[in-house]
């Protein structure tokens, strides 16, 4: 089924980003929903769908957000791992099939003030060996990449450095201190070959989007941003083969999104990659065909992804410099770039088409292409 241009994003919003002790994920979610409604000039009774994204602590499910939302829409769902991509895909399906017409998608989290332990693991041979935290498997993948392709840290560091350059142009970004590639290389390792700067920050906050049918979208004040293509793939059977950490499922998602839309990498004006670590950037710029296989870091070092480059990547500052938010703010930024409404020093001129790629750790991958022309 061709879904091109049938659904549009008409509102985006978010809470403040940072550390908010005493604020629950659900409270923050309501702030974000309020902000998205204001952006779309809507009231909550005009929504007939609610899709929430669980926080890592397992909160923020639809029936927890519902009582504060104060409305029972005809359609409500929760995704365990939205990354905004899966949430947008579900909303697209709900709207096309008529289950709902105008849906709010929301993610909220208080993992920072809640002091969530991202290294927690049930005692096992691996955890007893000290193999904990997502930085472990990500660093294994990077080390393998270095050995196979000669990838250099002074090239790989440009993913983190470029995101910081964008973050300095984004008032919402939490990490704005200048960082050159030399500064980066002088930082200590966290899990070698990864540095702290290659790994996401943890922050509290919430993000919401409002999605509706293309017919309705024309009635809203903002320039509609249409969903032009969606694709997903998985490796839910888990770690059963030796190249598992290289995540071949991403290549399958990439092939699918290009095939289904007819677009090619050179059509994309702005690129967004959800990134708990910079290894995700490296793997995805290669898997989606922006850089030759094995050459993602060298390609990044050429400056394509920096402010002024020909393929701006994570213009919000990404998860390395803007905020945690599991990639949700990447989608918000993509929408604002396509509307042409971000701060002038961050605005990518004539941005009409954006690709947002995300993954659920090593187990699933998803992509959406959104644009201003249905």
């Amino acid at each position, binding site marked *: 089924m061709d879904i091109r241009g049938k659904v549009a994003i008409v509102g985006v919003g978010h809470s403040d980003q940072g550390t908010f002790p005493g604020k629950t994920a659900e409270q923050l979610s309501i702030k974000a929903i309020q902000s998205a409604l204001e952006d779309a000039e809507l009231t909550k009774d005009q929504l007939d769908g609610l899709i929430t994204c669980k926080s890592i602590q397992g909160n923020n499910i639809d029936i927890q957000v519902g009582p504060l939302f104060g409305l029972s829409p005809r359609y409500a769902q929760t995704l365990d791992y939205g990354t905004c991509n899966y949430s947008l895909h579900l909303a697209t399906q709900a709207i096309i099939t008529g289950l709902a017409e105008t849906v709010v998608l929301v993610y909220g989290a208080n993992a920072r003030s809640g002091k969530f332990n991202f290294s927690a693991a049930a005692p096992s041979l691996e955890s007893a060996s000290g193999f904990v935290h997502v930085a472990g498997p990500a660093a294994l993948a990077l080390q393998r990449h270095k050995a196979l392709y000669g990838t250099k840290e002074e090239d790989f560091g440009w993913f983190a450095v470029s995101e910081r350059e964008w973050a300095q142009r984004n008032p919402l970004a939490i990490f704005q201190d200048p960082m050159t590639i030399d500064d980066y290389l002088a930082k200590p*390792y*966290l899990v070698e070959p990864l540095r702290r700067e290659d790994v996401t920050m943890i922050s509290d906050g919430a993000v919401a989007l409002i999605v509706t049918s293309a017919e309705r979208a024309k009635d809203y004040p903002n320039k509609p941003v249409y969903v032009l293509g969606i694709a997903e793939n998985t490796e839910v059977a888990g770690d059963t083969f030796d190249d598992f950490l290289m995540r071949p499922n991403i290549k399958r998602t990439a092939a699918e999104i290009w095939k289904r839309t007819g677009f090619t990498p050179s059509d994309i004006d702005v690129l967004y990659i959800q990134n708990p670590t910079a290894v995700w950037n490296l793997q995805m710029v290669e898997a989606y065909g922006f850089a030759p296989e094995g050459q993602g870091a060298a390609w990044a070092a050429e400056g394509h992804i920096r402010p002024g480059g020909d393929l701006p990547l994570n213009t919000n500052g990404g998860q390395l410099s803007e905020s945690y938010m599991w990639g949700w703010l990447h989608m918000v930024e993509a929408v604002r770039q396509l509307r042409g409404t971000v701060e002038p020093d961050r605005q990518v001129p004539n941005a009409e088409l954006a690709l947002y790629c995300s993954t659920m750790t090593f187990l699933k991958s998803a992509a959406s292409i959104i644009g201003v022309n249905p």
Partner: protein
Amino acid sequence: MSSHRPNLPATDQPLTAPFWQAAKKHVLTAQKCLDCGDLRYPALEICPRCWSTNQDWVEISPNGTLWSYVVYHRALDPSKKNEIPYIVGRVQTDDGPVFTVRLDVTPEDAEVDMRLTASWDDADDEVTLVRFTTA
């Protein structure tokens, strides 16, 4: 034997007890499906290939190849703070099963695709952890 260390896995769970009993004798094992022959680590209750529950543990080759390795410079698990920096490797054994465990190799000597063989860390009276060292 070294003194008791925190966060060691339970060795008395029916699914995994044979692995830990063999490890105590410094023998590397993996779970094998007695119907289709699928060989795997970690263990599963049902064979993912044929869905048989007829499974047992068999000795496998202690030799393998280093797929990749990393060095933990920060104690992301605070109970390991006296052990940093430490090195963890993903090792594909010659019989197939993959283990991601501590290496008895210095970061300077570690190299992707190097040959390794199992070595053993008797963590306490109950738990022996497999590691890998230069073959």
